[in-house]
């Protein structure tokens, strides 16, 4: 009974503990001191670790981890159109994306890894994102395949896929206008939270996913399917753009390091 002290009248520091069944489920997405469930601050991103060129057989490949979300991206192309030849475009390349989740990626074993509605929608979003950044006019009548697989899902699936696929496309040597960096942000207690994890996403936070070309500040894709007051939209987009620029710095480091390593190996 006595492990919670509340002194709202004097505005003193409030302690909250999980045992007290006071507010909803006792888990606070943003504590008073500004710490989130995993101890991050509101604008702090999760740790990003990435490696390029993980597969030798594919034209380009990359593995990226953002916190506990792990994704693997593989790129083939540009090559001749396969499958339906009627989809050939005479002036640019067609980008074919496939998103799938490993059956062991979520808490409960996934019954249908690909082909379900969410995967198809995600694949379409990835296709739209990369059509904005890849210079497809250089490869008419050909096809570029981007396959992304989520190995462990802990929130921000779309963003991690976009970041991994960017590295894979760069590894394949396909010309791009700029990096494509993505981040998922949410709005809690008048504060934007950057880079949501699974607990925050399912905790009823209005989440917005943004894919950005950082140098020009151009938005490649913006997606939100939650309710948010109009006044907060500006702030949320600003926070997302700042978070994406942070991600782009990390990806830049990874690309430069990979370039230097591969040139050392080839003896340049």
């Amino acid at each position, binding site marked *: 009974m006595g492990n919670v002290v509340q002194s709202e009248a004097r505005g003193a520091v409030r302690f909250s503990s999980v045992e007290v069944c006071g507010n909803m489920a006792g888990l606070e997405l943003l504590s008073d001191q500004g710490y989130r469930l995993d101890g991050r601050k509101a604008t702090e991103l999760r740790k990003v670790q990435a490696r390029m060129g993980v597969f030798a057989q594919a*034209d380009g490949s990359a593995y990226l981890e953002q916190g506990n979300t792990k994704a693997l991206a593989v790129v083939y192309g540009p090559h*001749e159109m396969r499958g339906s030849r009627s989809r050939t475009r005479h002036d640019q390349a067609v980008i074919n994306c496939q998103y799938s989740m490993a059956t062991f990626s979520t808490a409960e074993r996934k019954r249908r890894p690909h082909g379900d509605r969410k995967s198809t929608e995600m694949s379409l979003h990835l296709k739209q994102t990369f059509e904005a950044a890849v210079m497809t006019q250089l490869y008419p009548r050909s096809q570029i395949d981007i396959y992304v697989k989520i190995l462990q899902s802990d929130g921000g699936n779309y963003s991690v896929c976009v970041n991994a696929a960017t590295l894979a496309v*760069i590894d394949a040597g396909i010309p*791009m206008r*700029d990096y494509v960096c993505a981040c998922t942000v949410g709005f809690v207690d008048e504060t934007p939270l950057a880079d949501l994890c699974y607990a925050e996403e399912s905790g009823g936070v209005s989440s917005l996913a943004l894919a950005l070309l950082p140098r020009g500040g151009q938005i490649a894709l913006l997606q939100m399917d939650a309710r948010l007051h109009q006044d907060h939209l500006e702030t949320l987009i600003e926070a997302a753009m700042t978070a994406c620029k942070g991600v782009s710095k990390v990806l830049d480091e990874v*690309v430069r390091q990979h370039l230097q390593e591969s040139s050392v190996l080839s003896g*340049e």
Partner: protein
Amino acid sequence: MSPMKLCVPGDKLCSVEDCIPGTGVYLRHGYIYSSLAGYVLRKNEGEELPVISVVRETETQLLPDVGAIVTCKVTSINPRFAKVHILYVGSTPLKDRFRGTIRKEDVRATEKDKVETYKSFRPGDIVLAKVISLGDVQSNYLLTTAENELGVVVAHSEAGAQMVPISWCEMQCPRTHAKEFRKVARVQPEYLQA
């Protein structure tokens, strides 16, 4: 040799007044930006501005372009056309095979209507051809061999031996001495080994 500068996609390299854009770069608002992750290469071409391009150690897939000389292998023939797989573009091998078509009227420059594909190509022949069109939605790359230097370079006879060219329309098998009809390419003197 000074160390070459690393660059990543989106890096601003220089203004369009200082250099001419080459490969691996793009122009935007009067500036040249890199579109590949690689090394910046500046080449001086005489009195003109230097050409700036970005190169990688491993070149990406080259696509056959109109006017390019390609090396292909015949897969099937038909009285109207021959279907081929394009293997090399110039001297660069392709990682993936592209499909092409050589129509009957593109086999040679003279007497186009009297061409018999059976007497010009056979499946398995290696042919030098030139790309005339990227084709439309339904068709593949359109190729032509209507020049002296284009046509069959390597062919195997029915006995299985590699044949020797005798004239522009015949090849002979060294084992059985049987002659077979092909549209033979006149190989440039510099490529013949003495």
